[in-house]
């Protein structure tokens, strides 16, 4: 980044209560990392629930994990990892003023997010149709075990909360794209893009743990 811009007191992107762009960007990143920490703790509660019930019903948990489709889970893992890469790439492009390419990559990232949700929709609709559901709604004949409805309670809470994050992430990426089109984000002002992309990486991060815990082991 050009430092001349950072020390320009007439920089339109610099809020009056900050001395320099560096200081402003530093404060913005600090706020984002604080928010990411709260997200880590939010999901930690669900991972704790998983751990406790898995310890109580290890055999049932393994049998339930076998009911999930590994190809679908693995596909979604690759989709999210690729979308994280395209999001990082998009930020890189906007940072070096390749605005059109950056916008294209943001669009590609949102398309990957849609693919993830479509795969998730097929998984959910299958579970609804065969009755692999939480609590009292569990009615699947193929696997009868006292802890099976607990597995699917954790499954739907964890993947549901993660899915909500995918939706919010898509919205954030969309807003970033819109603001970039409007000329707000470019090489001289891109910390907003960076933070939005950080949120998208967080979505990827959570799924990296959910996939093996729910589908594989």
């Amino acid at each position, binding site marked *: 980044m050009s430092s001349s811009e*950072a020390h320009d007191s007439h920089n339109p992107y610099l809020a009056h209560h900050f*001395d*320099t762009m*560096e*200081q402003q*960007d*530093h404060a913005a*990143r*600090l706020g984002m*990392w*604080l928010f*990411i*920490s709260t997200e*880590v*703790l939010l999901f*930690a509660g669900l*991972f*704790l629930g998983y*751990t*406790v019930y898995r*310890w*109580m*019903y*290890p*055999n*049932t948990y393994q*049998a*339930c994990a*076998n*009911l*999930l489709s*590994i190809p679908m889970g*693995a596909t979604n893992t*690759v989709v999210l*990892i690729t979308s*994280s*890469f395209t999001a990082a790439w998009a930020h*890189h492009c906007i*940072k*070096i003023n390749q605005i059109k390419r950056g916008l294209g990559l943001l669009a590609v990232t949102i398309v990957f997010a849609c693919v993830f949700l479509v795969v998730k929709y097929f998984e959910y609709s299958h579970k609804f149709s*065969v009755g692999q559901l939480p609590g009292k709604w569990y009615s*699947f*004949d*193929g*696997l009868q*075990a*006292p802890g099976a409805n607990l597995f699917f309670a954790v499954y739907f809470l964890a993947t549901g909360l993660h899915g909500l994050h995918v939706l919010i992430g898509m919205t954030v990426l969309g807003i970033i794209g819109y603001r970039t089109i409007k000329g707000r984000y470019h090489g001289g002002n891109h910390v907003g893009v*960076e933070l939005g992309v*950080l949120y998208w*990486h*967080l979505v*990827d*991060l959570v799924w*990296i743990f959910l*996939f*093996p*815990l729910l*589908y*594989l*082991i």
Partner: protein
Amino acid sequence: MSTKAHDSNHEDHGMGRYVAVFAALLVLTGVTVWTGEMDFGSWNIIIAMVVATIKASLVVLFFMHLWDEGPFNRLIFVVSILFAIVLILFVFGDLMFRIPGLLPPSIQENDIPKILESHHHH
């Protein structure tokens, strides 16, 4: 207030680093699926968690730039991970070492899933 250190993640490492991390993440996804389908007994969960932790570290350090971030932001993230570990370890410890009579009765003996093979995916 503003120093070079604060802004260090503005140093451009270019696309090379992102491409390398992306490739490593794809390979590790393959590894976790591959080892997940083999039977290592109780080692399966350990292998899967080690691979997931490596993948997550790559994402946090390089996609999310924590590698280049200032010490304060690193501290915030590390502390959140530590508290998550404390939460899980303390509750899990309570569960494992609690007086057996306080747990729901014969929960482990009831853990015998009845499986109809026709419904199995794999």
